């Protein structure tokens, strides 16, 4: 009995210690970001790995999600004779929720896991230690550019996802199901608010980008430096990111749309 309580306590202490380490880590990374002003090429390179390589996935997923939304939404709306509202349904679902959330989940799976694996591998092959001994701070040289790249990429990817998704919904709605395209666009414009809907969606995706990149980089940096440890860290990145995204999405939705 005592042993159970003790192990619970040990687990709690370890968890808190880890959370503490994650915050110290974040602080160090943020402190390293101003220095990147002189190292633009490092950020550009990471934008390529983090952003460009996720682009195709986001593009295709966005298109399909939008097309499915168009189809399903039409089938529901047509029962009420409100199929003209299809544009509103597609745009609001994408801009407010699906765009930021789904693209962040995909981002965590594609870019987040890759970041964790890369950093974890650099740690296990002593590349990070090696840099430290060459008097190069790995947090500034390796981690900070990746963090900034993730932070910049996420809102752009989410915007692409939403835009492509709306186009997909339009393709299905107008092309396949024959919804009037004037009504589709004009109702969408009338009901989708720039500040209330689009900008709040962008804010969501910025928050998700920040959190996912943070989790991914910390998991890599804190990984047990063995191949097994890196593998576990990669899994943890995806799982923790998914929890963080969905949990934060609820909180943000309450703050933005719940009031």
């Amino acid at each position, binding site marked *: 009995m005592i042993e159970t309580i003790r192990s619970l306590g040990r687990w709690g202490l370890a968890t808190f210690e880890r959370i503490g380490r994650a915050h110290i880590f974040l602080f160090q990374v943020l402190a390293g970001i101003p220095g990147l002003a002189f190292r633009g090429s490092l950020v550009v390179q990471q934008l390529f790995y983090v952003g460009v390589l996720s682009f195709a996935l986001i593009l295709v997923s966005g298109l399909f999600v939008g097309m499915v939304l168009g189809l399903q939404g039409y089938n529901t709306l047509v029962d009420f004779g409100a199929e003209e509202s299809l544009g509103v349904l597609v745009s609001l679902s994408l801009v407010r929720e699906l765009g930021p959330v789904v693209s962040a989940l995909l981002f965590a799976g594609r870019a987040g896991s890759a970041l964790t694996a890369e950093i974890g*591998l*650099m740690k296990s*092959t*002593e*590349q990070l*230690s*090696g*840099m*430290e*001994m*060459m*008097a*190069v*701070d790995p947090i500034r*040289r390796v981690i900070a550019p990746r963090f900034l790249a993730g932070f910049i990429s996420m809102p752009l990817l989410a915007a692409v996802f939403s835009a492509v998704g709306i186009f997909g919904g339009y393709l299905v709605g107008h092309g396949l199901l024959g919804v009037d395209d004037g009504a589709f666009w004009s109702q969408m414009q009338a009901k989708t608010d720039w500040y209330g809907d689009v900008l709040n969606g962008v804010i969501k995706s910025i928050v998700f980008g920040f959190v996912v990149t943070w989790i991914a980089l910390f998991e890599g940096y804190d990984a047990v430096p063995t191949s097994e440890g890196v593998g576990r860290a990669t899994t943890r990145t995806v799982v923790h990111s998914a929890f963080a995204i969905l949990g934060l999405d609820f909180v943000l939705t309450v703050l933005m749309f719940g009031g």
Partner: protein
Amino acid sequence: MPLIKIRDLHFYRGDKAIFEGVNIDIHRGKITAIMGPSGTGKTTLLRLIGGQLRPDKGTIEVDGQDVHQLSHAELYELRKRMGMLFQSGALLTDINVFENVAFPIREHTTLPESMIRDLVLMKLQAVGLRCARDLMPGELSGGMARRVALARAMTLDPMMIMYDEPFAGQDPISMGILVNLIHHMNNAMNLTSIIVSHDVTETAEIADFIYLLSGGKVIEKGSSVQLKKSSSPWVQQFMQGLPDGPVPFHYPGVSFSDDLLSPEEIS
């Protein structure tokens, strides 16, 4: 005055003591070897000297500066004058040999490209890998990777180089090359070298002074000749690589016959 002065060093990992009161002096211009069985914390010692780990007690002075009292910036300034060769080489895997050697120069200086090229080729020539400069680290053998890492460790002309198990897992030829390189570099560039190793013959061949570590303490110190004459049976066992002696072959515990007769673990 020694370049590195370690006094009363204590270091614990969890409840386990790695060092308990270690004193070591490392003199300028000499090759000092630190030897001991696996798991005595030889690599840990190098990390302590490099400031990557903090001791629980005691001080480490490098060139008159207490490593663990320095600020972040001062520590990084000091590390520019320290080279370290990791066991794996620790080359950056996403750039080629040339860029790996150029990495410290690019990070710390704003030299023009032509000068970087001259410097890098010079260092690569010294380790005999000038023509391998376009290879990626993944295409190198273990010995070649260590030589590239050595070239990289020297690019900023440090005052000292720390070698972490430079001979482990090498075939006789690359072992010979590395022994030669370490010896020549030390003399030609007036370096101070610290070798952490358990390859007795190779290390004893080039080391000017040897410290033997075991159980968190310095067991014996002296030149290789002195050590070979040591009266301590432990030192004799280690230096000659005998399978049994003061360090028993068997992991300590109850005797074999007792174990066979005890019924408690049968379930």
